[in-house]
């Protein structure tokens, strides 16, 4: 069910401010694509434009095309809500719903969309999703406890379980490990390598080792200058980016000679 994403000539605006300019990228299915770059270079904005989450900010809009397996995400008859059901997202800080138990958090996407499922089917979905998120053994005895009571790393895996429970085709991850300790980070990275068997994963990260460890492809975003929109400077297989990048600025950034 993983799908490829083709982005062509994408500009993203907040009101009159152009945040990202001229992105052309083709994201391979069943792989992990990492987006790296300095803060404020538009990589998170770009990531959010892939499931139209950036539209939560009033005045945000795009020009250009985002196509998933031939379907235009921004077509005039496309409902952003439907887009987000197909393209899940995991955020920087773990954000389980505080009013819901672990169980309810996992099935939140199903329940909130008022899809009616039998109890047994829900149970099965919870176990499958939590197993896929490597969380099942840790929480199976306390599924009715509040999700907010878990540790940070567990919460983040719970959020991943919640995202994959709605069976999306693509999983977007916005710095999913930046609020976690190294052990939890490792757990999430392991999880990502397992998940890429089933999903197309795009991850934004500030941690270049993480990009090098988990991803097949890496895109480097940078600003052309102060107040300029962010651009995708280079997009290549991760190995090439980290050993022999095409662009001088990529090399500078990776080797720490940035700025």
């Amino acid at each position, binding site marked *: 069910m993983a799908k490829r994403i083709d982005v062509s000539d994408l500009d993203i605006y907040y009101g009159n401010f152009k945040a990202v300019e001229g992105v052309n990228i083709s994201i391979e299915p069943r792989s992990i694509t990492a987006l790296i770059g300095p803060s404020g270079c538009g990589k998170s904005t770009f990531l959010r434009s892939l*499931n139209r*989450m950036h539209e*939560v900010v*009033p005045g945000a809009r795009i020009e250009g095309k985002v196509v998933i397996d031939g379907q235009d995400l921004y077509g005039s008859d496309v409902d952003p*809500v*439907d*887009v*987000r*059901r*197909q393209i*899940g*997202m995991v*955020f920087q*800080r773990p*954000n*389980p*719903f*505080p*009013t819901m138990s672990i169980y309810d958090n996992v099935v*939140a*996407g199903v*329940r*909130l*969309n*008022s899809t009616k499922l039998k109890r047994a089917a829900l149970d099965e979905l919870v176990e499958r999703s939590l197993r896929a998120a490597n969380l099942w053994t840790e929480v199976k005895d306390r599924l009715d406890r*509040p999700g*907010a*009571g*878990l540790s940070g790393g567990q919460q983040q895996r719970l*959020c991943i379980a*919640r*995202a994959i429970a*709605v069976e999306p085709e693509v999983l977007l991850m916005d710095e999913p490990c930046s609020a976690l300790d190294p052990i939890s980070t490792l757990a999430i990275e392991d999880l990502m390598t397992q998940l890429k068997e089933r999903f197309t994963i795009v991850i934004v990260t500030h941690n270049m080792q993480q990009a090098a460890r988990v991803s097949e492809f890496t895109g480097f975003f940078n600003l052309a200058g102060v107040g300029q929109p962010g651009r995708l400077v280079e997009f290549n297989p991760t190995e090439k980016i980290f050993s022999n990048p095409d662009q001088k600025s990529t090399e500078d950034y990776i080797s720490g000679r940035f700025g």
Partner: protein
Amino acid sequence: MSTSTSPAPATTSAGPLGSISQHRRLPRFGAAGIFAVGAAAGIMLSAVTGFALVLAAIYAVVLGTAGLHVGSRLLEGRRTAADRLVTALVRIAFALAMVPLVWLVWTVVSKGTARLDGAFFNQSMFGIANEGGGAYHAIMGTLIITAVTAVISVPVGLLTAIYLVEYGHGKLPKAINLLVDVMTGIPSIVAGLFAYALFSLFFGPGVRLGIAGAVALSVLMTPVVVRSAEEVFKLVPNELREASYALGVPKWRTIVKVVIPTAIAGLGTGITLAIARVIGETAPLLVTVGITAVTNLDPFNGRIATLPVFAYYQLTRPGVPPEFAVDRAWTAAFILIILVMALNVVARLISRFFAPKTGR
């Protein structure tokens, strides 16, 4: 407290860095002692001029504070003395604010228990000339009108708050925001006049209806609901909304299923406090629903007695002999206070027990 915040170092060593200059500080009980001496002088002064409890307390506090200030000034210097004076003043201010609270509650309790009997709760004033009678009709009226008010204000207030927080961008929300502020400041009597004017258009002059009173109270309650709901909606982290959107949940379902449940404790507290704010309102009901001696439970038909208006008329038009009506008035005021305090307590309990659980 004031003496222990920054005690001077007990020992100073004149090391290579030079010595820390030492201020003399009064020991902890020194300050209290000076105050006590001043206070004692004050009480003696009042005894000389003819003892009266209130006067003695005033003299004691004034002389005690003055004594502490002078003593501190002589022993500790000008700056510390000023600090001590202000510390004493803010404490006195707080104590002063407690005087009317305690005094008021005491007055109402001591006078209000006279008619705290069964008849008061299950009889109306129908056919009562002096002794006996009760406020059953008024209590029911207050409950009915408050309920109707809540039925009007809560949905309007919540929806407006949702509009301001979740959909609020542009000129219209800004205008509404301002007008909610304006509405908060409408004097209650003006709200009453508005409802009277509105209903007299349809029913002719001199109209008195329960629903008119509820409309008047809604004008007062709605902005309170809007403001408190707005506050709690703003406290719901944006991350939760985003998490829900990212699951492909439409905005309205996100609000209904994620935002409102997360904010539910705060909403409950806010609404309860808003009800507490209007349940004791008298002026708007005086001009819109008036008073009657009989039990009327229909807010759409004629006058309804309400507890505050009942209390008002029993005190100001007691009849002859007055003591029976005056007793009824105080008991009504007592019940009113209990109602308001109970609502306040309930509001606190709601926020304590229904807040989302995050404990591990």
